């Protein structure tokens, strides 16, 4: 039977383009991050107070070699963005993965085992959801002290509910299916059933959430940088650059605009990748 409801073919084609574009950008970012020490035109830490606030190459007053200009300390914006990608991706990868592992595990346990485990975990999710997340993260960083590890811990502590909520619901739905019952009838233990029957079925959801979470992690780092709580060495971070750029926006817009654009594209890409994957895994969803 022909589906007459709407032009679905078109939607799916667009999802493909989306997947491609975001994948391309993230791939580029990974390559840049990996090769940053070799391909960055300058040392991201090298300062030259006499070359401060150089504009990007097409603006009068620029210096050759400093493609996107320099910040107030005379550091090369392009090189800092490139090296910043390393920290951004590192935070995204580690924080995303750990958050995913913790959240998905708790969600699976709650959704499949039910009973008191579910009650405890669900209540915890409720409590967590009642915290304003930005305030919570700022509080946590205040407790832990600034730094990469603290940011990752804060993201994990705050965002595990994102996974737990969804996976719990999915695990519950899967647990009600016949194949799970038959697996149990076949004599497999509860945990065994969970890992071998439920997990593979919720895995696509986990992957999608993971992608989205990575985008969130990048943003959280930027927000914490903005309230002066992020990584505090002079290592380049996008959030730190944005915070500096925001305060000198009238003198050197490029210090804000380029990292902001990079951050924007990266967050957009992670999210579009997640949405695209969701379509791929589950075409009925759309």
């Amino acid at each position, binding site marked *: 039977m022909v589906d007459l*409801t709407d032009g679905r073919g078109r939607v799916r084609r667009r999802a493909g383009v989306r997947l491609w574009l975001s994948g391309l950008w993230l791939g580029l970012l990974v390559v840049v991050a990996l090769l940053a020490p070799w391909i960055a035109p300058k040392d991201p830490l090298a300062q030259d107070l006499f070359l401060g606030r150089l504009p990007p190459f097409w603006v009068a007053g620029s210096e050759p070699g400093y493609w996107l200009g320099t910040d107030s300390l005379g550091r090369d914006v392009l090189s800092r963005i490139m090296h910043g990608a390393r920290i951004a991706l590192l935070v995204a990868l580690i924080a995303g993965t750990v958050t995913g592992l913790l959240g998905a595990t708790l969600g699976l346990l709650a959704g499949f085992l039910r009973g008191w485990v579910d009650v405890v975990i669900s209540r915890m999710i409720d409590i967590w959801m009642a915290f304003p997340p930005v305030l919570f993260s700022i509080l946590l960083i205040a407790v832990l002290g600034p730094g990469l590890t603290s940011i990752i811990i804060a993201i994990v502590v705050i965002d595990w509910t994102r996974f737990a909520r969804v996976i719990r619901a999915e695990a519950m739905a899967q647990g009600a299916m016949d194949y799970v019952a038959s697996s149990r009838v076949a004599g497999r233990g509860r945990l065994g059933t969970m890992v071998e029957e439920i997990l593979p079925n919720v895995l696509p959801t986990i992957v999608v959430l993971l992608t989205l979470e990575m985008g969130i992690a990048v943003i959280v780092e930027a927000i914490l940088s903005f309230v002066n709580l992020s990584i505090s060495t002079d290592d380049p971070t996008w959030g730190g650059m944005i915070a500096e750029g925001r305060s000198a926006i009238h003198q050197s817009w490029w210090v804000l605009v380029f990292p902001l654009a990079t951050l924007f594209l990266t967050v957009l890409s992670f999210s579009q990748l997640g949405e695209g994957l969701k379509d791929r895994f589950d075409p009925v969803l759309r």
Partner: protein
Amino acid sequence: MPFLQVSNLSLRIIGETPRLLRSVSLSVGAGEVRALVGESGAGKSMIGKAILGILPRAVEVVEGEVWLDGQNLLAMPPMARRRIIGAKAALIPQDPLTALNPSRRIGPQITDRLVHILGWDRARAESRALALLEEVQITDPARVMRAYPHELSGGMRQRILIASAFAAEPKLIVADEPTTALDVTVQKQILRLIKGMQERHGTALLFVTHDLGVVSKVCQSLSVLYAGMVVEDAPVRDFFAAPRHAYSRALLAATPKYTDPEGSLTPVPQTVMDAVRAEVAAADGVWHG
């Protein structure tokens, strides 16, 4: 010209070659009850939809005309077409369970058209609705007017939909398999109700169905649709006496006698199907089967 005249109507899914309807023509005169018969998927619902201007978005009219009360609907701007259809025609839908808006009370769903399209005042519309509900044999119509659809049974809802279709005294009603979704016991009552209403109000009726038994009871003439084409157009009496087209004959043979509702189904023989297919392919040039 008859009240409704469909001429050479061809439909297709946008972007695809095979047609859903191929040069379909049929007419319904004032007060006439015409059946539109065919297997599911033959495109008979599409005709009803095309007449009422509710084709799915993915379907387009390739050619043809639909004349209602002397006006060519397809040549009109959409809004004007809707107004005319709203004032002169109505639909009795197939599934009473989904055809009422679950979040609105029954009363307004009947009076809507009277108030908004015909410009009646609310009190008059409501008394009209009460009268209609009584006419379709609903007890305690005042309570039903205030009820939500989920509080009522399927049969009740179909009665309401019938009442609603007759509300604005349309000249034509398209009944799209109005009994298919109902219990067998209720089916007969509803059929009787529609027939009675049609006779009292003198409305023309296009009765879309796959059930020849129903046709013989209710209709005066019929059009048989197969693979998007009208293969036979005849008065009911003539059709049952001597169906002309091979498909019609097969269809009639496959239909349990209306006198014998429990009768077994005889499938349409394969050879007949092949013959029909060849005929259709010749007409269209290409057969995508």
